């Protein structure tokens, strides 16, 4: 075979289309990479919020001697509905329900953001 023929064949090498799945996978990863700093900031804000609220609630409960009160009530009434009801009402007298709700939102929010981030990362992999 002469070189001209080889050149001609090399100039007409077969090509194939790339899978559209690969294209969209790359775009999803890139999109995620762009969003990642936002996810990280959100995650750390939620964790920080959780720690602050948790510390605040803990301080309030210690100041109000909530642990001692719980212990006394338990020795007097044993584990009953009355005991649980008293503990809950005493707890919400010391701590505002909005603060507790905020604690839960921070806690589950940070878990959600973390999981969502990891889930997306794995999802992008082919």
């Amino acid at each position, binding site marked *: *075979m002469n*070189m001209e023929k*080889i*050149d001609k*064949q*090399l*100039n007409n*090498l*077969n*090509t*194939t*289309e*790339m*899978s559209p799945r*690969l*294209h969209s*996978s*790359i*775009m999803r*990863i*890139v*999109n995620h*990479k*762009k969003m990642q700093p936002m996810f990280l900031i959100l995650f750390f804000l939620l964790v920080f919020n959780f720690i602050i609220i948790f510390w605040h609630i803990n301080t309030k409960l210690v100041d109000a001697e909530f642990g001692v009160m719980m212990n006394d009530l338990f020795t007097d009434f044993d584990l009953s509905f009355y005991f649980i009801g008293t503990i809950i009402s005493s707890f919400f007298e010391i701590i505002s329900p909005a603060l507790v709700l905020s604690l839960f939102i921070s806690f589950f929010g940070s878990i959600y953001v973390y999981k969502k981030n990891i889930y997306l990362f794995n999802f992008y992999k*082919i």
Partner: protein
Amino acid sequence: MKDSLTIDKKILIKAQNGDLESFEYILTFYEKAIFNYCLRVIKNLSDTEDIIQETFIKVYTNRRSIDPEKNIKTWIFTIATNTMYDYFRKKKRKNERILNQEDETIIDPSAYYNSEGLTSDIDSALNKINKEYKEAILLFYQQGFEYKEIAETLSIPINTIKTHISRGREQLREILKNEYGKN
């Protein structure tokens, strides 16, 4: 694929600033060319897909290095080539660790094209020449690169590129002559 592989400067500047639409434009523009180049060098479809993915993620991560005044084509192909070299290094280390392990499905690109009914003897012969020659030949013929661009992409002097292409063609001729009886 050999048509003018150039992108408008405005798009490059936008991509540099993290604009995803512009990045997708670049991806669409080069994905097929890089895919075909890598597939012929790697000879494994699944690994080629991984390399393409890694290459374009590197392109996005290093987007600030894009110089709109310069040729982005050689820059992207350099990233793809370096990613392939990393792949070969990892593969070599893996093979040294695990001898005789058959954990990969090696696909001969000619067979891949064959399934599409597109194969030719030149495809098979290309897989038998030296890797360095093959890379230079693919960039020259398949991608329509100039000698200077190939030299830039592979970080090899222009004269060496010319020698690689010439020797590669010679090897191809020998293979086609000896194995496929083509004179």
